[in-house]
């Protein structure tokens, strides 16, 4: 029925296969797979660092505009483009201190746990057709599971630093993330219901007629909003940054960290923002899928000529901007308000959305 040839315009699956076969012709299979694994790993880490730099720059500029300022504009010519790379270089040259009375092993482990969770979920994002890094049939479930490793890192960081600020920050963050995971899980389940699959690539493929947010109309829009709120809380940002509330806890769970260990937390915070947005885009806004409307064939054909990776990145940055807008608008919540919001408002709402979505799917009232 549908002409799906557009999906292969920018499919890089063939390229991957070609590279693999070329390698196999000159070396044994284990070496080829090892080399490919190393190349992909390197790619992930480089992409991770570059995206973090872009996001930090964007955050500083957007925050500045929300406060009627200009933001960084001196380092690196016009627009302060080299400000963040300079900051990164500075942080790399700083000493990593070890604390008296801290649990040395856990103290050093915690930042790596946080960054590990972030890189795991990062590898699941659908960049393009054929450009997924981790693909499994329970992809979205894996994202939820892997992102929970991060809270372990945060709790360990807070506990092992042996300081009041860090432990309070870590416990707050733990309570918050565990609560908000409920809403995230329920809204993700709603979209899994609509798509009928947990595989991230298949979720994207199921939106080739229309994005999920249009297909699922009312419940999908409500789920999108709930997901954004809960995702913002999950990333410890915006009105939910009470884990690192500067005024009361200096810097929360990473108060006692210095140098690149602190850098890891900082990196993970911004990448979690990107990942939250990326998952939101995958579930609701069609991932790398171009904008399609049934009936408008000419329009759809034009949209298909834009590569999927551009669609994905631009949609993700749109959601990132939305989250930054929220962050720089609302004041920080107290811990009791945070928990009230989740348990009394968001969770019942997401259960209701799940119910409505089930009814819609069963009776075929989706578009």
């Amino acid at each position, binding site marked *: 029925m549908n002409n799906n040839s557009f999906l292969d315009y920018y499919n890089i699956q063939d390229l991957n296969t070609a590279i693999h076969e070329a390698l196999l012709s000159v070396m044994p299979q284990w070496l080829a797979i090892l080399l490919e694994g190393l190349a992909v790993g390197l790619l992930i880490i480089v992409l991770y660092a570059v995206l973090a730099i872009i996001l930090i720059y964007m955050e500083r500029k*957007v925050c*500045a*505009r*929300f*406060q*009627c*300022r*200009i933001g960084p*504009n001196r380092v690196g010519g016009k627009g302060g483009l080299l400000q963040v790379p300079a900051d990164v270089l500075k942080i790399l040259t700083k000493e990593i201190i070890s604390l008296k009375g801290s649990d040395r092993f856990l103290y050093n482990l915690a930042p790596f746990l946080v960054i590990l969770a972030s890189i795991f979920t990062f590898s699941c994002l659908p960049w393009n057709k054929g450009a997924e890094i981790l693909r499994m049939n329970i992809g979205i479930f894996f994202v939820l599971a892997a992102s929970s490793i991060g809270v372990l890192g945060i709790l360990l960081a807070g506990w092992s630093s042996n300081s009041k600020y860090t432990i309070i920050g870590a416990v707050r963050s733990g309570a918050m993330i565990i609560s908000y995971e409920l809403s995230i899980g329920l809204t993700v389940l709603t979209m899994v219901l609509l798509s009928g699959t947990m595989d991230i690539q298949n979720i994207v493929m199921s939106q080739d007629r229309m994005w999920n947010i249009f297909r699922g109309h009312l419940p999908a829009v409500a789920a999108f909003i709930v997901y954004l709120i809960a995702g913002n809380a999950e990333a410890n940002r915006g009105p939910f940054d009470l884990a690192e509330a500067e005024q009361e806890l200096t810097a929360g769970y990473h108060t006692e960290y210095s140098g690149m260990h602190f850098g890891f937390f900082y990196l993970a915070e911004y990448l979690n923002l990107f990942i939250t947005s990326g998952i939101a885009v995958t579930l609701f806004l069609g991932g790398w899928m171009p904008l399609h409307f049934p009936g408008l064939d000419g329009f759809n054909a034009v949209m298909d000529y834009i590569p999927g990776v551009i669609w994905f990145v631009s949609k993700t940055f749109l959601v990132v901007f939305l989250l930054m*807008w*929220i962050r*720089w*608008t*609302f004041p920080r919540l107290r811990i009791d308000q945070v928990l009230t919001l989740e348990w009394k*408002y968001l969770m019942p709402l997401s259960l209701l959305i799940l119910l409505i979505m089930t009814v819609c799917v069963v009776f075929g009232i989706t578009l």
Partner: protein
Amino acid sequence: MSNFSEYIQGYVQGVKSLLIGMRTSMKVFCQKPVTEQYPENRHTTLHIPERHRARLVMVHDEENHHHCVACGICQMACPNDTIKVVSETYEDEDGKKKKRLVRYEYDLGACMFCQLCVNACPHDAIRFSNDFENAVFQREKLYMVLNNEGSSCAPKK
């Protein structure tokens, strides 16, 4: 039942107030930044608010007349002893004894820009100007004489 309707009402009101907040911040986002890039825009777009108090000046008109009658109220109003009004008495043509200003001394280094002197002045003879680039290397340069050389009080109309 009333509990439930209160809950729903709270929901709706909360969403509404959040949306108002987001609208407000988006308005601010679309405004022009107010940052002054000072050394660069010094001669171009620099904007100092009109009421900014940078230093005290005495108002002189084209004929080198000021309005100071040397009453010394500003000197008394000043909490820091920043102002010193040096005056002399003279006899005018009718033989009346009158006071006139000789030197109006002002110590910028001791001024705290409270504007009490300007508020106290009955003749609007002094005001605060916008010339804020007052940094100097010697303390002595901050002692200023505000009345121009050869100036005199404006004749009464």
